[in-house]
């Protein structure tokens, strides 16, 4: 018995060591055609991967759905630091700047021919993945055009119009949106929208010409009147009693959506998938109206190839084929992600695309319209942290009894602490 304990320990040590030895990159075999792909969960990436593999039977793709977009970016950071990276990775727009800031971690896609396809994409979307010395780090897979999803049955019960044109006409501005909310609340006694932070502030602050950074990449969040205006709108919505006080993607938010605890929710194009999966029983009770202010973009993702990738060429072949205008159009018909390639915006496949879950709303047309007249702004490495502090300040006023009068100053001072300015 005395002998066994050390033996057992040695065995454990060996097992641990084995477990710690890096594997040999799974799907990325030696044939140069196969590759490993990290994507987000819950965006149906597998459909597109399967379609590619059907066309190229000799290619093996090892798809890993890492988690949410933030979790994927965190895993990527850890992987880059550790040296064991996938061949291809999907990065959400909000997380992109921190990687663009450190371009030495990625393959400069110009070396694989990115300049040849550059013209296919929306110029301002493309520019967000270009690093300081012109390195191209990612190819945009989709954009997050904006709209408002609303419940036709609840609108009808409140005596509001239900037709999507008439509903859009209710709120040309965010102030009108809040007024509509008050009408709804008066008629039904229930909350109009889910929360002020994401459904009002985060939408409004993405409709500006200059956000937290100026065009020459200086921090202007505390002095930019456009940001302050969006923040004030958020506070106004939070204190007007029209929100359910349920933060997006929390469990109560999901439950509330199924139970009709709110009638309208801001819906960037990727949100439609989320509504479908969160509240499948509400199929056919939704419709989609224009976003107040008419245009805007929130989100959208990029495909990038880390520097240590074993099969960068195979990954690039995938990007080139699946992210071409035709590839993105097909992707739209599969999962509804809005293409980042403007040449297909007039294509009947996109303009005639109707979504039965949302009362046959022409989603392709509504969302591409929201991108027209868009004023692009620079997104910097601290944009995500700044946005989060503003969100938290509004949530605190809405749900935590925070003082609306000092919310702005509090948020600015929290941001200064957070980004170490």
């Amino acid at each position, binding site marked *: 018995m005395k002998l066994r304990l050390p033996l057992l320990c040695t065995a454990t040590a060996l097992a641990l060591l084995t477990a710690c030895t890096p594997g040999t990159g799974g799907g990325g075999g030696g044939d140069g055609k196969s590759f490993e792909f990290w994507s987000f969960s819950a965006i149906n990436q597998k459909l597109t991967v399967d379609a590619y593999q059907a066309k190229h039977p000799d290619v093996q793709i090892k798809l890993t759905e890492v988690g949410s977009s933030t979790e994927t970016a965190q895993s990527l950071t850890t992987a880059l630091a550790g040296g064991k990276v996938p061949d291809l990775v999907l990065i959400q727009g909000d997380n992109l700047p921190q990687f663009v800031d450190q371009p030495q971690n990625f393959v400069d896609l110009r070396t694989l021919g990115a300049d040849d396809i550059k013209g296919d994409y929306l110029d301002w979307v493309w520019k967000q993945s270009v690093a300081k010395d012109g390195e191209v780090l990612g190819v945009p897979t989709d954009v997050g055009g904006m709209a408002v999803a609303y419940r036709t049955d609840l609108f009808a019960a409140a005596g509001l119009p239900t037709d999507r044109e008439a509903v859009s006409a209710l709120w040309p501005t965010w102030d009108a949106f809040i007024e509509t909310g008050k009408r709804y609340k008066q008629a039904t006694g229930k909350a109009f929208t889910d929360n002020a932070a994401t459904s009002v502030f985060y939408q409004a602050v993405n409709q500006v010409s200059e956000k937290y950074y100026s065009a020459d990449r200086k921090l202007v969040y505390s002095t930019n009147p456009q940001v302050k205006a969006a923040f004030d709108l958020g506070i106004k919505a939070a204190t007007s009693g029209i929100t359910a006080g*349920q933060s997006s993607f929390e469990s109560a938010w999901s439950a509330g959506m199924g139970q009709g605890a709110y009638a309208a929710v801001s819906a960037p194009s990727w949100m439609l998938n989320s509504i479908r999966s969160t509240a499948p029983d509400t199929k056919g009770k939704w419709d989609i109206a224009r976003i107040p202010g008419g245009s805007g973009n929130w989100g959208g993702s990029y495909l990038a190839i880390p520097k240590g990738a074993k099969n960068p060429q195979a990954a690039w072949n995938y990007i080139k084929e699946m992210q071409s205008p035709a590839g993105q159009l097909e992707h739209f018909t599969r999962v509804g992600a809005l293409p980042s390639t403007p040449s297909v915006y007039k294509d009947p496949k996109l303009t005639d695309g109707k979504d039965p879950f949302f009362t046959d709303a022409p989603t392709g047309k509504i969302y591409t319209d929201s991108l027209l007249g868009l004023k692009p702004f620079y997104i910097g490495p601290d944009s995500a942290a700044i946005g989060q502090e503003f969100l938290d300040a509004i949530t605190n006023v809405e*749900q935590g009894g925070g003082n609306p009068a000092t919310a702005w100053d509090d948020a600015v001072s929290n941001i200064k602490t957070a980004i170490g300015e």
Partner: protein
Amino acid sequence: MTATLTPAPSAELPPPASPRGRGLAERLSPYAYVAPFFVLFGVFGLFPLAFTFYVALFDWNPIGDQVFIGTDNFTRMFSDPRFWNAAGNTVSIWALSTIPQLLLALVLAHVLNHARLRFALFFRMSVLVPYITSVAATAVVFAQLFDRDYGLLNWLLGLVGIDPVDFVQSTWGSHVLIATMVTWRWFGYTTLLYLASLQSVPRAVFEAAAIDGAGPWQRFRHITIPSLRPVIIFTVVTSTIGGLQIFTEPLLTGSGLTCGAVRQCQTLTLFLYEQGFGQFEFGYGSAIGVALFVMVVAIAAINFVLSTRIKADR
């Protein structure tokens, strides 16, 4: 005769060819036996610890530059309101969970030790069920019980005409919620520790006291508590060290790594994790880790002093 006097044939023993070598092997073998633990501890315990101290002196971007900045991370930490907020939350949650938990365990141990308790084994085992339930499962259940809109607790409050309480979004509410989870998880474990210690007290002492006219409260006050003094100090110290490192409950209770919009329930470990693995400020995260390490060592030292005193008293 001579045969019996002949020493045992030397072939049956290993030849002491080199007595020095054999002595060395014998002297070294104990170290070989304990080596696996110390090797593992060195690789997975000591090295990460030392490396944390090293990283704490840098502005360390895991995918970018690592710049030596001396003690700047610590200067920043001491003037960071988020650090003090997290420290305050940690202490508040610790007090709200440890004090009721130890009192509850004390009373329960006293009851479970009662001579006439039926099904004693069943009761003694069932208090351990929360302890073996996963923290994540506990957190999910409690978050639903305490939910503002659809929670059971607020439904009950509604029945008696009290407005729904937003436990997660308010500071005291979130602390109570987390402390409840911690208490729920650990009271059974503490109870068993007390019970084990109580069972070493001869029953005759309780019986003699009862014959002399001591009521249940007097027996509890004058027999149970004094005989448990060493183990009470032990549990206070271990639950304090545990309380300083509380992580899973606040992470699963609030929204995200800040545990709510105004960090109302962010503990020190959660703040460390947010800075290290949310913002990827490895240097700053390590500095927080060092601060936490110092606090735990200080409390362990207090434990050492107290327990040596108790031994000296005896």
